[in-house]
């Protein structure tokens, strides 16, 4: 196990770029990304693991960046909402009304994106399982559900065409 103490210089791979940052071992990944690298897309809704607004992908898996230490992300590929580009889920969130204030959106997008990457044929129960990790106070979830359904359909169609 690697041991860190005091100020340490680490390299973080965020959104396909290497960032050299000086952190304290107790600094969370969320705060380091937001305050030191400048990725403010992930949000601090609770910093307690309860809301999902800080969700990012680490090696393709959704994690709550407020519960991760920055040093834990060394050697991993981190993807934030800023690293998503023109994905089906983003497009569907816009067309289906997947957000209002947008504060929860980064977290929902990352989680939903990972779900569709991992399991494009997820059924309703699996979707609920994944997305109940995030909270949204504005939409009543109707738009999010519709967006997920639409993005899933589009991805399935694409996959079928490939086959």
């Amino acid at each position, binding site marked *: 196990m690697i041991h860190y103490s005091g100020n340490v210089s680490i390299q973080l791979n965020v959104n396909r770029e290497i960032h050299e940052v000086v952190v304290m071992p107790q600094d969370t990944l969320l705060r380091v990304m937001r305050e030191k690298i400048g990725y403010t897309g992930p949000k601090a809704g609770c910093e307690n693991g309860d809301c999902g607004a800080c969700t990012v992908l680490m090696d393709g898996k959704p994690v709550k960046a407020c519960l991760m230490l920055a040093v834990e992300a060394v050697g991993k590929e981190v993807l934030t909402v800023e690293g998503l580009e023109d994905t089906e889920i983003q497009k569907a969130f816009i067309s289906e009304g997947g957000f209002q*204030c947008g504060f929860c959106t980064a977290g929902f997008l990352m989680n939903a994106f990972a779900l569709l990457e991992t399991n494009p044929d997820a059924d309703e129960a699996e979707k609920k399982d994944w997305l109940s990790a995030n909270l949204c106070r504005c939409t009543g979830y109707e738009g999010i559900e519709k967006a997920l359904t639409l993005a899933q359909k589009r991805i399935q169609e694409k996959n079928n065409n490939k086959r």
Partner: protein
Amino acid sequence: MNTKDGIGTSLTRKESLDKVSGRVIYGGDNMTPQMLYAAQKTSPHAHAKIIKIDTEKAKGMKGIKAIFTGDDYKDNLGLYLCDKPPVARNVVRHYGEVVAAVVADTYANATAAADAIAVEYEVMKPILSPLEALSDDAYTIHEEMGSYSHIKPIHPEPGTNVANRTKIRKGNPTEAFKSAHVTIETFVEIPPGDHVAMEPRVAIAEIKKTGYVHILSSTQAPFVVKGLMHQFFGIDQGKIIVKAPLIGGGFGGKAGIQLEGLAYLLSQKVGGRPVKLVNTREEDLTGSPGHIGLQAKIKIAADAEGKIMGMDMDYYFNSGAYADYAVNVSRAAAISCTGPYYVPNIRCDSMCVYTNMPFATAYRGFGHIEMSFAVERAMDELANALKMDPLELRIKNGIKPHDTTPVQSVLNESTGDIIKCFEEVGAMLGGDIGATQQLENNTVRVKGVTGLWKAPAMPTNTDAGAILTFNSDGSCNLNTGVVEIGQGTKTGLAQIVSERLGIPVDKVHVVMEVDTSVSPSDWATAASRGLMMAGMATLEACEDAENQIKEIASAVLRVPKRDLKVDGERVFVPDEPKIGLNLSEVVLGYVYPNGNAIYGQVIGSGKYIAKHLTDLDPETGEGHPDLEWTLGAEGVEIEVNLNTGKYKILKAVCCIDVGKVISPALARGQIVGGMAMGMGYTTMEGFTFNDRGQVTNGVLRDYKIMRYGDEPEYQVKFLETPQQDGPYGARGLGEQSVIGMPGAIANALSRAVGKGMNQIPLTPEKVWKTSMEVKR
């Protein structure tokens, strides 16, 4: 008119792409190298004397710039009633109250020092309900109430715990109760709780050497903040610059003044440097204000046919430790105290009562969700007593144009059609509202309905403004004081411009951030009045701009102004369209081929101010505080397992008369979002307390709100009875759909268990217990 983007089409929000790309900068996303960071220390006690605050150790810690305690500022702050020190002074009045704040070079250093501050308390017994606060032996939570300054429309009762009382007296209720065929009485309770906007509150304050005070805040009401900063601290109005970026949800929780005052005082302590104060989620839940609680007694008298003859009501709103907006919430509930029913004889006392609980501010519905719960439970009790269908009873009593409201104002033709709303809701639920359908396994299917109404509660001089400037390509820029909190008003306003001037909506640029030094004044983005008032101001600005465009074109084209029309990005003569100019040629002044230029740029301006509003008579409540009424009806269908108490809301329906629907998708989003909030409020939310008054669910893990997958099937219908003085006939719709959910759910569950379920939240455990009681 450009029909593609105009009124009635569903557009995506203007800021959509930035929102799905993490590119919107919310308040908390602002960080500069000059910034210092604040942390707060909060009280673990609900009611205590502060004996000593020991800051010695904290002072010596790394990076500490300043420590602020109650003794650092001698005056109180307060929105309507100046009752709250910026941090607790001598006494703590609720769990989570801020007792000290620290400023440091980093947030981590600030929190470490806040932890190191030692506070010695003498813990005292808290008051934990309004009725307890009103009992004879209750102590007075604000001894000094008599010395607090307050606005005129509220009536504090010094020496008691009543921060405001609004009386409604109409007709002769005593007589009505005497001659009634049936009377019913009911008592309901709602605990205080929280908005849980996903963005915790933030304020950044800086005092420049020139005396300018810059405040960036997650506020729904930058102009209220500006006005109050002047009032509290004597800063010149023109030197206060409040900026509101996009907000991560407000729901009323960010509509007053909250962290701004403290952030300013902290900046003052560090020589004016910018100080960033962000709530943790826990501080946001219990340190900053949440939603109000209620205890209420309601009596209804009716004749044999089910016509309501009179109502007698006592609303005891639970303000918590401070008054904030609560004193106006209780007043707003009084104005519409009967729900959307015509009642000729009324006695109502609506009180705002101090307790030792987290304090309350505005919350979506502004007193109406609480009032409605009480009234709608009573209506179902009345239907039971009369053995009448609950929907039929409501249709029979639904309020109509020309009826008088509780404050004796007369409803006009712009008032929505609640009867039709009831019918639509009945139809969406498949009728037979009073029936209980037995399924297997001791499971039943039940329905519940409610009516709802709301008028904005706001100052009589509530205003809005709009400024329209242009770019050389003929596109325009709309600047209003409406804050974008997720409701989509900015997009709606762009649609209004597009419709009015025939400019495609993509070429109507809206200024997203509000800056009180450049945006026209706008009371607040609250009370569901943004689209209506800023919409009217925007229309006037369009008209003004159109007039100027025609004036230029009239000179250039040598045709009378009245023969010109502006549409499709041109100004032209309709029957000879070739005679015309592109807007791009005129909006910054016209330039002749030889270089001569005339007129200069077009700047459209428009304004709105509420008309003919008055305060209430202190003895009878008579007055005209109600600008417009939005009416609607809601209902649910629920499946309940009586063995376990577990239930699932299968369907939630709403029919609401919003006047003209400007953007159907955005409007539906507001309605559905409100219904979801109302469902969470009713089924799982609210603070829980131990007997020492400590909040036992003060973290998001324990304070439950609805999650993905909890949502039922939503059905929404709009009626469009035009608001005659609204933009294209539109009126407010942002809050209304939250109002009817508690009553609808409680009415359905009461039917399922066979007994009134009158205490929110209606948890499965409560359903199970009640159903067991009934069985026995």
